[in-house]
């Protein structure tokens, strides 16, 4: 087959860990079929194409670009804009691109606070000269440049338009394969769809039956402080499980590992703010009704933001910590 007649596919990563790349490699035997069916034109982790190669392509030359990772730097912005321009279909791959992911937890801190800690205050750092990474460093009349570090971590669709989302931290091979198959066969759902079941995890969970009708939570447990019954619903054991609020499609893998769902598949399409939703669900299920008892129960949840917005802070209504001088339109405005 003439390689150029095959649909072109690109993979790229922004603020991510590479787990999404692994997830593609984890297609295992199926990757051979993918490789057979498409022409991969860009994939830094596995192939030697450079940015220039991408720039040289005509606009919309790429059938689909799968981008993982959140957006923090000017370079990431440029790259995703470039990919958007070159691609007919831009797919957000994984939790970081879709929701901000773990890197978006940094939105609880101001930009300056982050830089100060990382390069100055962290106990491992010795930096008497007060050096910080600079946008431009002179070298013999030349300059070595670094991209700008923005105020906040953003999800992909807060920077460019996204056609589809494949959720997960990372997505499963099965979902990836289904998405690629649908793409190749041209049977994609309406734009903007998250390519995973739109039902919460409990439905897929092998422990659903043991979930009682009335949870009546009087305390939250921490997983290392309690002997976990490997058969019983984790919420019923007091472990904050994000399953009820989290999209399924992950095959309940964490649950099968006997740990609670932490929400990496994000909310269902009907929910605007993942964290707020699970919070309101838990709050409703609390048995104590008076302030003291409620406080006691909540003591088992020492880190609400990290628990409820583990992956979705960038996409939440909270977005990020605001510095006193920075004003930002709260509801729909784009952060700088």
């Amino acid at each position, binding site marked *: 087959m003439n390689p150029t007649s095959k649909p072109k596919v690109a993979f790229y990563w922004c603020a991510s860990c590479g787990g999404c790349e692994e997830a593609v490699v984890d297609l295992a035997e199926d990757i051979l079929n993918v490789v057979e069916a498409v022409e991969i034109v860009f994939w830094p982790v596995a192939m030697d194409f450079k940015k220039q190669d991408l720039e040289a392509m005509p606009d919309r030359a790429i059938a689909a670009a799968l981008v993982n990772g959140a957006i923090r730097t000017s370079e990431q912005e440029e790259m995703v804009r470039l990919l958007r321009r070159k691609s007919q279909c831009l797919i957000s791959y994984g939790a970081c691109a879709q929701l901000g992911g773990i890197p978006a937890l940094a939105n609880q801190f101001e930009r300056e606070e982050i830089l100060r800690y990382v390069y100055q205050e962290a106990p491992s750092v010795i930096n008497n000269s007060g050096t910080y990474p600079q946008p431009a460093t002179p070298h013999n009349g030349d300059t070595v440049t670094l991209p700008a570090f923005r105020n906040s971590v953003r999800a992909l669709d807060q920077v460019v338009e996204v056609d589809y989302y494949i959720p997960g931290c990372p997505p499963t091979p099965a979902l990836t394969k289904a998405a690629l198959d649908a793409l190749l066969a041209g049977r994609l759902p309406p734009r903007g769809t998250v390519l995973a079941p739109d039902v919460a995890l409990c439905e897929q969970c092998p422990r659903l039956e043991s979930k009682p009708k009335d949870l009546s939570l009087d305390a939250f447990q921490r997983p290392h402080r309690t002997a976990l019954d490997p058969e019983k619903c984790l919420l019923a054991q007091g472990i904050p499980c994000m399953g009820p609020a989290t999209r399924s499609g992950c095959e309940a893998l964490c649950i099968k590992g006997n740990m609670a769902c932490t929400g990496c598949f994000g909310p269902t399409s009907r929910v*605007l703010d993942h964290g707020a939703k699970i919070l309101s669900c838990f709050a409703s299920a609390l048995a104590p009704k008076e302030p003291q008892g409620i406080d006691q129960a909540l003591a088992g949840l020492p880190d609400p933001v990290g628990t409820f917005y583990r992956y979705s802070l960038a996409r939440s209504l909270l977005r990020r910590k605001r510095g006193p001088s920075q004003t930002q339109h709260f*509801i729909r405005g784009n952060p700088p």
Partner: protein
Amino acid sequence: MRTPRPDQVRIGFYICHCGTNIAGALDVGEVVNHVAGLPGVALARDYKYLCSDPGQELIQHDIRDHGLNRIVVAACSPLMHERTFRRAVEEAGLNPFYCHMVNIREHDAWVHTDRQEATAKAKALATGAVRRVALHKPLETKKVPIHGEVLVVGGGIAGIHAALILADAGKRVYLVEREPTIGGHMARFDKTFPTLDCAACILTPKMSAVGAHPNITLWTYSEVTQVEGYVGNFNVTVTRKPRYVIEDACTGCLQCIEACIYHDARFPDEFNLGLGKRKPIHLPFPQATPPVVLIDPGTCIEFKTGKCKKTCVEACADRRAIDFQQREETRQIQVGTIIIATGFQTFDPRRIPYYGYGVFPTVYTALEVERLLNAAGPTGGEVILRNGKPPQRVGIVHCVGSRDENTNRYCSRVCCLYSLKLAHLIKEHTGAEVYNFYIDIRTPGKGMEEFYNRVAEEGMHLVRGKVADVYPDPADPANGRLMLQVEDTLMGRILKVPVDMLVLSVGLEPRADTQEVRRKFNLCCGPEGFFLERHPKLAPVSSYAEGVFLAGCCQGPKDIPDTVAQAGAAAAQALALIVRGYTEQEPNTAYVREEDCSGCKSCIPLCPYTAISLAADKQKAFINEALCKGCGVCVAACPSGSIGQNLFEDEQLLSEVEGVLTYA
């Protein structure tokens, strides 16, 4: 994405002046101009009184002439006129739920003083409403049948009166009373103001009528423990405490009391507020209804040791009414409407320590004095002090626990009058000098001022002033006499008045378990803690829970005439519902999108109306529309956003919020 195509939606916007109520506080013209320019708005007008017939007709004509298909009315609270405008819109051929109200009176005009800001707020609210109404869907009001049975909670004069009216109308009434007998506070009084007729003479016939009425199921010594369901279909659980006497077997002969191993009555008697004594087996008072004795397991020897000779059982003989094994029982009933008549409690004067109640034996509450005056009371109607002597000088302090910043700020309404009544009766019984210390004498109501004049003329001392201190007579601390220090504010001097009986006119308070009852029946409470009526003037006996009505002092302090009037009104309202036979169900119900539901069960225990169940075959939640009241609890809690609610769809609410914010 959320804004519908403007050619589909034609919104008519109307802002009401409400006379000057709204137009006086904000610039209605400016609001009209603003809204007229919003997408989807075909027409915007202001009008003096939109709720008037011509106002409604204006909207109806516009719907026809201008092809409007959505209506926004910016006026008063939807509680007042939502029905009015929905009906008007429906008559003009539109689905009534295409009409939406914005409350710019209570929420805006009445609460702001800055005209410009109030106008800005009205624009913001109107913008939100315009955005929202565009997304409204046609909905249908459903009719739900109503059960004819009525539950009356509380057997004071209010509950008794309501129960009798309904029973006489042929309805089955369940009257649930916590105490062993009905009668409430009134059963403890001797005479009643303003007519000074004997309380027992007017109350006991009604009590026995209740006991004998074939349509009334009377459960005393009982409490409602659970209420489920909704107007027309309440499922009620009543718990009956054991009285260790079988109600149907007891004839009220009282031979058991005679025969009790305790020869003398030696335990403080609850009905007489501890002023008298009773035996372990007792009847609260001679006319108690039902006339069924009860055993207090706390004092009965059989209960304490299991070794009593049980002379009571012997005396009961063949009737075999005494049953030491009796257990708490529960009863399930289904009723269509509920009347709450749980009354009040009197203020505990220990909370104001300087009156010395509980410290000096000669300080009494008014209610205790009622018992002393009562011929069936502990002293056989003689006013004698704890030392056995009749008082010669009696002080009555008004407003104890009323009109007081530190306790209750409100006026308890009956204390002035019952104080005058007690002053009169004490004087009549003992010939003592009686001093009334008052802040103001309040005597509204039919015959009350006349009653005041009559008593005042009897030679009462009326001192306008607050008692500031009460202390034993320093001259002779042993004689039990108390000195009252009062500033007579009319004469402008400090008085020291020696008395040998001090009566505290305690105020009326919400019962201690009010919050519990409120939760059980989904009621609301006002700032003083009494149950809140739906509207102080227009719906004074309706509560915020549909099909649940309020009667008597549980809604606020009042005298017996008002209590009885209100009880009658509550009975009439219940009857009106029953006679109509159905209620209209607001279609703002919640529904589960089955294909979206994960079966996580989070919603099931939350519904206060138990409308949600798990369809076992499908493992999906299911909402019984007839039970849903549209409270929205499940919608908020559903963690996967799989429950929607008519009229409160996410997109409607978010558009509304966005509309408000885009303007703001």
